[in-house]
Structure formats: C-alpha cells, structure tokens
C-alpha cells in the first residue's frame, strides 16, 4: 500500500516539525514530570538528540508535594500522586536552566498554578528568562485538590487561563489538556480560541487502587494519575478527536513506549509526541523512539515526517 516509490532511497528523512512557532529538530520529547529537570537523564542519552526537553511542572513557589506512598503499579500502568512537588519557577531559572542552555535542544517549561493569577505570574517570570523556548500549561493535573482539575475540566476556565497567560508572553504557548472530561474537543477548541499555539494531550486519567489486606488506598492521597501503556488507546482516541477539531498543532501523549507507539499518534495527526512513564522503564527510550521513527520513514521511502503526520485513512466510519 505505502511501499517505497521509485525515488532515490531516502537515507536521512527530515524529522523536523514546527509547533506553532516553535521549530523542533524532531517530534520527540519527554512528558513533564517524568524527566526531572533534564539533567537526571544526561548520563543515559545525549540530550542534544531530543526535539525538546520538557521539565517537571513548576509553580510560583516551591511545593513539597504529597506524603508517601506516592506511586503504585497497576496493569500496564502506574498511579502517581506526587502532588506537583517542584522547586519553584525562580529556583528553576537560577539553578536548573543554565545547565539546559548548554544543549542544542529546545526547553519547554511546564507550569501550573492554583489561581489564574499564579499561572499568569509564572508565565510572566518565564517570559523574560533566556533559554526558555516555550511554555506548556498544565491545566489538568488531577493530583492536587485545588489545582488544575477545575481549569481543565471546563472550557470557560481553560480559556481564561490561556488568555491570561497569552497576555504575559510571546513565547509559544502549549496548553496541556486533561482527559478526565466528557468532550475533549470542547476544551481544545476553547483554548485554541483563547490564543494557544498548540495543545498537548493527554495528562493522566484519575485512578485509584486499594490494598485489600490493609483495606486502605495504596496512595496516601487516595487517588492518583494513571499513566503508561494502559491509557494509550484513550490518549490516541482523544488526540485523533482533537486533531480534527482544532487547526493548531496537537502533541500526542499517553503510554508511548516505542517508535511504533509514537507512530500511531503521528499517523493519527499528532504533530509531535511526548514520552512519559516509559522513561522509567528504560532511560534511553526517547532516543530509541527517535531512531525508530527515522528507520520507519526510511523503510517506507518517505522524505520527511510531514508525509506521515495525519496520514491515517479512517474509512467510511471515520468521516465526521
């Protein structure tokens, strides 16, 4: 069907993509919260290889996070209730950003807040920081009671956060969506209209597990965010829906462990992908995903990733 054509064999296909003003050398990056502040992985890979580094979610002030136990394995997934522990945006800029600036890769800073004003102020601080290439706004983290959930679950609030950050910064603005909603397209179109340059999805699905001997939840926080391969089918469905609903680029996230998994998202229309939980299974996953995508393009005689993105043929049932 998609066999190589009669053209010259392709040896180095063009992997570069553009995300609403942000040019990446390839479409592969870590998902926030699974890659620390980047340095943690530097001994396992050449960070220069990555499309971007996405750092752990930052807030205006440092946060100590939730009490342990914070994680629990579930079938093909894990629950986490880290509680958005982070060193705060100022410490990040002072202590962690300089290290990242030495690499020839884009730095995307994930942020969150508990009020519109907090979001706004974090964005304001980052806007002036050299070496920050884009902001990803987490309006979705389900771990913190007063946190993202309310913003990401309602189109009006999601739009409001987006607008208020948009006013503060000219940096490319990626809004990261929660899957814990009835209709993802409603939220995606709302943040698009409010000025987002891209959307990324999905954040974790809210889940829970119970220790049947102790008869209490495995997580001290009771519920946590479900990530990993288990959620991939839900993520892929939502990405496909979002791609058809908005004109801005969509970044696919959820359960990606291999190039094959990443290709599902790209074929469904994601302009780029983020790898989260899989970094824990093998710290070199990101590089393997990049290499695997390149090998696929070569095998299929494609000159660039653009030929692949959104090339899904959904047949009669997929027509809107």
């Amino acid at each position: 069907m998609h066999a190589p054509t009669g053209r010259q064999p392709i040896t180095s296909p063009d992997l570069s993509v553009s995300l609403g003003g942000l040019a990446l050398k390839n479409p592969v990056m870590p998902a926030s919260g699974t890659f620390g502040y980047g340095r943690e992985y530097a001994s396992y890979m050449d960070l220069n290889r990555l499309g971007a580094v996405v750092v752990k979610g930052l807030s205006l002030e440092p946060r100590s996070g939730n009490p342990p136990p914070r994680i629990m394995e579930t079938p093909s997934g894990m629950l986490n209730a880290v509680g958005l522990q982070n060193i705060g945006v100022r410490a990040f800029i002072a202590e962690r950003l300089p290290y990242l600036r030495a690499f020839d890769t884009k730095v995307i800073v994930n942020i969150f807040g508990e009020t519109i004003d907090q979001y706004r102020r974090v964005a304001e601080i980052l806007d002036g920081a050299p070496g920050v290439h884009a902001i990803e706004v987490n309006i979705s983290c389900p771990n913190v009671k007063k946190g993202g959930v309310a913003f990401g679950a309602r189109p009006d609030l999601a739009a409001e956060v987006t607008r208020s950050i948009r006013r503060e910064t000219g940096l490319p603005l990626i809004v990261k969506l929660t899957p814990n909603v009835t209709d993802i397209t409603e939220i995606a179109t709302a943040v698009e209209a409010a000025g987002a340059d891209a959307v990324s999805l999905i954040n974790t699905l809210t889940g829970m597990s119970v220790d049947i001997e102790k008869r209490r939840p495995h997580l001290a926080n009771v519920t946590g965010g479900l990530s990993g391969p288990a959620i991939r089918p839900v993520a892929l469905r939502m990405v496909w829906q979002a791609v058809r609903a908005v004109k801005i680029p969509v970044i696919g996230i959820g359960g990606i462990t291999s190039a094959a998994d990443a290709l599902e998202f790209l074929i469904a229309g994601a302009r780029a992908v983020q790898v989260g939980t899989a970094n824990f299974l093998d710290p070199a996953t990101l590089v393997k995903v990049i290499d695997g995508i390149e090998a696929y393009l070569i095998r299929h005689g494609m000159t660039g990733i653009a030929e692949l993105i959104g090339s899904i043929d959904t047949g009669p049932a997929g027509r809107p």
Partner: protein
Amino acid sequence: MDEGKAMAAGEIVDNRPLAPGHYHMTVRLPASFADPSPGQFVMVREAGRMEPLLSRPFSVFDFHRRGEDALLELLYRTVGRGTGLLSGMKPGGALSVLGPLGRGFTMDPGIRRALFVAGGVGVAPLHFLLRRAFASPGKRDPGDAVFYFGAASRDLPASLAGLSGLCDLRIATDDGSRGFHGTVTGLLEGDIDGYDPGGTALFGCGPAPMIRALALLLADRPIPCQVSLEERMACGMGACLGCAVATGTPEGERAYRKVCEEGPVFDIRQILSLLSCEQGGP
C-alpha cells in the same frame, strides 16, 4: 555531559531458594557495569517483558568481576508479582539491569566498631557492606564487626552461615528456632549499653517496625546510625519523585527527599516518618 550509562543486559547464572520465600540470584553483566558500593541498589526487570511494568529495586548483596564478566548477586524475598515471577526464572533468563544507583553507606575511617542490624532480607546490603569493609585482606578486623541478624526462623540465617567467619554474628528469630527468641532490636537492646558510643557506628536495614524500634532505641544514645530505606520506586534515578521520604534537619527544616537518589541510605535521625518503610520482614 556525562553520557554513557545505560540499562545493562543481564543473564541469570543462578537463581535458587535459600530459605522459604527467599532466593539468591547471580546475574552476569557486561564488564562495563560500574562497581557498586555497599548500600547501592539496582533496578531489575525481565528483558522484553512489559508485565510487571516497572522495574523493581534490589540492594546489591555482592558483586565481583571475573574475567570479562561482572557478577551481581541479589538476595530477595518473594512478596508479590514481580518477585514471584523473578523467582520462577531459570539460568539463562534475560534481565535488564539499571545501576548501580543511589548513595550507599559511608564507613568513616574513625569507626572502631561497626554494629550491623539486619531484619530478614534487609541483610542484603549489610552483607555487601560487611564483605567490603571487613572481608578483604588489609581491611578491618572481623572482631570489630558485630552483626545482629533477625529473621522469622533459623532458615535464612542458616543459609547465610558464611557470615559468621566475617564477624561476630548474633542471631534473633521470631520463633526462637535459633539464637535469641525475639526481635533483633530486642537482642541489640540487651547489648547496646556495653558499646562505647565513641568510635561505634550502626548500620541497619530491615522492615519498618525494625527501623522504628531501632530509632527508639537510639533516641537517647548518641551512636551514629545509617539505615537503608525502602519506598516504591518508578524510575530509581531521581526523575519521578515517587520515592519520597519525609526528612528533617536539626534546624527543624522538613523536606521530602528521594530515597533513590539521596538515599537509600540515610542518617536514621533525619527520617521523620518510618511508616512507609516496608522491607521484607523477618
């Protein structure tokens, strides 16, 4: 950029039960695998399998190099899915091993007497520490190492009989089938005031109740004590923040620290809560 580390391909050389529910495994690793220090751990998974999803952390029980190979030894207790599947693996089975990870024990040169307090499979890192600190020629005198070893019954201590040549081994069993009839901290309690706090150091690893009892015992005794803690881990390398333990400084600062990166060995007096420390018990 300090690039170059990677998951190592491990091959099981030997995997056999030592005592009921306890296994000893030897894994052959490539020569490039770095030397672990006592108290460090590895993250282990079955190669090519996705269930269980996360790798499992195990302390280094022993480590040698032989020719081109690095031989890693683990001692583990079967408590759930991951360790259950591990115990069913045969020689030749393929593992992926990340490590060595974490910060191990520090044996201050000024220490004249080392007290080891092991509960059950918590013996693993202490065994490695003992061997590294006392077993090699030119190292310390075995008489200076007193090893308190608590277990459910005589089986586990019996299977590690080799320990006794390296130290003064004192055994406590829950069922009284060997040594002191009671907990290892109960046994230690009877002895502890006989040791001169100056120049003595304590090294512990075991189930949460043991660590708590140890903390209590040391509350008004000025003996330095390092313990190896456990917490559920996803990454093992400081990225996920999953393995938090609440610690406090003498200045009253309270912070979560990462067991995988800032531990697993901590000063017992810094640990605010020992409740989530669950290493396989005696």
